[in-house]
C-alpha cells in the first residue's frame, strides 16, 4: 500500500521535474555547486595548475593563527567599522528623506524617484566618475575642498587611509540611501492615519507628532532596516574596488575584497584552497550575525 502510494507520488512528480529541468540544472551548477566546491576545497592545497593535495584542517589552522593571518582579521575590523559608519550616516539621511517626501511637500514623487535613482545606476561606472572628480590634480571636488580650505591644494584624498575610507563610505551611501528611504516610506505609510488626526484635534504641533507618534511607531521597523543595512555591509566590497583597489597598502580592503584578491590576485599565484577556507569562515561569521538578526526581529514580531 505504502509503496504504491509513493510510486503514485513519484509518477505525479515527473511532469514538474520535466518542466523544471533546465532551471534546476542551471540552479545546481551556478547556485549549489559553488557551495559544495567550497566545502571540498577548503580541505585542500590547490593553486589551479598542480594537482590538489588533501591537507585536512591545515587551511583553518593557518587562518586561526591570528598573528600570521592578521591581514584577514584586520579586514574584518575595517568591515565592521565601515558598516557602523555607513549605517550611522545613511539611516538618518534615509529617515529624514522618507519623512519629508511622504509629507505634503510639493514635488514629493519627483524627489522620491530621484533619490532612489543611484541604486539602479551601474555603480562601477559611477565610482570611476567619482575617482575622476576626486583626482588630486584638477578634480572638481578636490578643487572645491581646497578652495574652502579643508585640504591643501594637490592633496590626494584617495591615497590617505582616513580620507579614502570616508570617501568609500560616502560613495556607497550615495548609492544606497534611496533604498533605505523606500523601506522607511513603506513603514510610514503603515502608520494608521487616525492616530495623527486625533493628535491634531488635541492640538499637537508637527514636532510633537514627530517625536510622540512617528518615531515611536517606527521604532521596530527602524531596527529591522538598521540591521539589514549592517548585515548588507558585511558582504560589501564597497567602492574601494574601483577607487583605491584596497590601498594604500591593505588599509581600505574590506573582507570580501580580501577574498576576491585570494582568487584573482594581481601578480602572485592564486590560493584557491586557502581562499575557499577563508570564504567558509567568512560565510559562517556573516551567517552567525544574520542568524542573530533573524532571532531578534522574530522576537520583535511576537512582542
Amino acid at each position, binding site marked *: 500500500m505504502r509503496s504504491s502510494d509513493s510510486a503514485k507520488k513519484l509518477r505525479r512528480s515527473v511532469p514538474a521535474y520535466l518542466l523544471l529541468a533546465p532551471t534546476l540544472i542551471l540552479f545546481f551548477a551556478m547556485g549549489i555547486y559553488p557551495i559544495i566546491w567550497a566545502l571540498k576545497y577548503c580541505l585542500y592545497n590547490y593553486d589551479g595548475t598542480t594537482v590538489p593535495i588533501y591537507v585536512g584542517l591545515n587551511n583553518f589552522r593557518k587562518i586561526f593563527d591570528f598573528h600570521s593571518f592578521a591581514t584577514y582579521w584586520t579586514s574584518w575590523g575595517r568591515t565592521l567599522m565601515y558598516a557602523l559608519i555607513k549605517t550611522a550616516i545613511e539611516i538618518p539621511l534615509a529617515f529624514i528623506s522618507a519623512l519629508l517626501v511622504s509629507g505634503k511637500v510639493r514635488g514629493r514623487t519627483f524627489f522620491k524617484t530621484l533619490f532612489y535613482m543611484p541604486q539602479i545606476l551601474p*555603480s562601477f561606472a559611477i565610482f570611476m566618475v567619482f575617482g575622476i572628480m576626486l583626482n588630486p590634480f584638477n578634480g572638481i571636488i578636490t578643487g572645491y575642498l581646497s578652495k574652502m580650505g579643508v585640504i591643501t591644494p594637490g592633496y590626494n584624498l584617495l591615497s590617505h587611509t582616513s580620507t579614502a575610507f570616508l570617501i568609500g563610505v560616502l560613495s556607497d551611501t*550615495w548609492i544606497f540611501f534611496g533604498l533605505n528611504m523606500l523601506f522607511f516610506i513603506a513603514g510610514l505609510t503603515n502608520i494608521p492615519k487616525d492616530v495623527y488626526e486625533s493628535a491634531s484635534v488635541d492640538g499637537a504641533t508637527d514636532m510633537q507628532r514627530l517625536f510622540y507618534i512617528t518615531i515611536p511607531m517606527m521604532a521596530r521597523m527602524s531596527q*529591522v532596516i538598521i540591521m539589514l543595512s549592517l548585515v548588507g555591509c558585511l558582504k560589501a*566590497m564597497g567602492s574601494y574596488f574601483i577607487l583605491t583597489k584596497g590601498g594604500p597598502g591593505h588599509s581600505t580592503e574590506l573582507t570580501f575584497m580580501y*577574498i576576491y584578491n585570494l582568487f584573482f590576485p594581481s601578480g602572485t599565484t592564486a590560493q584557491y584552497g586557502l581562499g575557499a577556507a577563508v570564504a567558509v569562515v567568512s560565510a559562517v561569521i556573516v551567517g552567525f550575525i544574520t542568524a542573530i538578526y533573524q532571532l531578534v526581529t522574530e522576537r520583535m514580531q511576537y512582542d
Partner: protein
Amino acid sequence: MRKYIKLIQNAGIYLFLITLSIIVLFPIAFSIMGSLKPVSELLTDSGFWPHKVVWSNYTRAFKEANFLGYIGNSVLYASVGTVISMFNVCVLGFCIANQEFIGKKALRLSILATMFVALGPMTLYPKLEIMRNLGLTGTRLSIILGTITTAGAEVFIFEAYFKSQGRAIDEAASLDGCSLFQRFFYIGIPLAKPMIGTFSIIFFNRIWNDFFWPYVMTFTNTRIQPLVVAVIALKDSTGEAATEWGLLLAGASLAILPVVVVYVFTSRWVISGVTEGAVKM
C-alpha cells in the same frame, strides 16, 4: 509669529531636498559634461561646464574603442539574460506554489541556503571552472549563463503571487486534461503578467550593471566585454593617465544615460517592486 515659523520650516525642508537632489544629480551631470570637453580642457581646467562642446570623445569611443560592440554585448546579455531569469523564477514560483512533487521542501530549502550562505566573490571561481570544463571560456554564452538569476528571493515573491491567485483555475484545467506544460504556459504566465513586467525591468537593469562575473570572464577575450566592464578595463589599462579621461567619461555616460532614460519611464513599477519586497521583509 506662527506663520514665520512655518515659513522657515518650509524653507528648511526645500533646502534639504534640493541640496540632496543636487548631490544625487551632480556625478551624473559631471560625467556628461566631462565627456563633452576636449581632452586639453579636461587636463587643465576643473570647471563644471565645458568651455567648448566637442563630440570627439564619442567619435573616438565608437571608432577606436569599439564601444558600439560593447553596447551590443550589454544589450544581448541583458535581453537574453532577462528572458532566462524570468523563466527561472516564474517556473520555480509556479511549481512551488501550486504543484505537488517529491523534494519540494528540499528545493525550497536549497534556494534559501544559496540566499543566506554568503561566500561572496569566491563563487566566481567554481563557476569559472565549470565554464572552462565545458570549453565555454571566452564565449558570450558563458557570460549569460553566469550572470542570470537561477533562483533567489524573487522565487518567493512569485510563489506568494501565484498562491494569492488561488489554485481553482489550475485544478479545473488539470481536470480538463491540460498538461502541466500547458497550464504553465497558457495559464500561469498570463496570470503573472504584471509581475513579469516589473521584474523584467529589474532583471534587465541588474544584468546591465553586473560587473564581477563578466569582468573575470573576459580577461582573455576583451571583445565580449559588456559596456561597464569595458570602461573599467580601459581605466585599468590606462592607469592614472588623464589623457583618456574623455574616453572614460564618454563610456561612463553611455552606460549611465540609457538607465536614467528607462528609469524615467518605468520608475513607478521599479519603486512598487522594491516596496512590495520591503513589505515582505
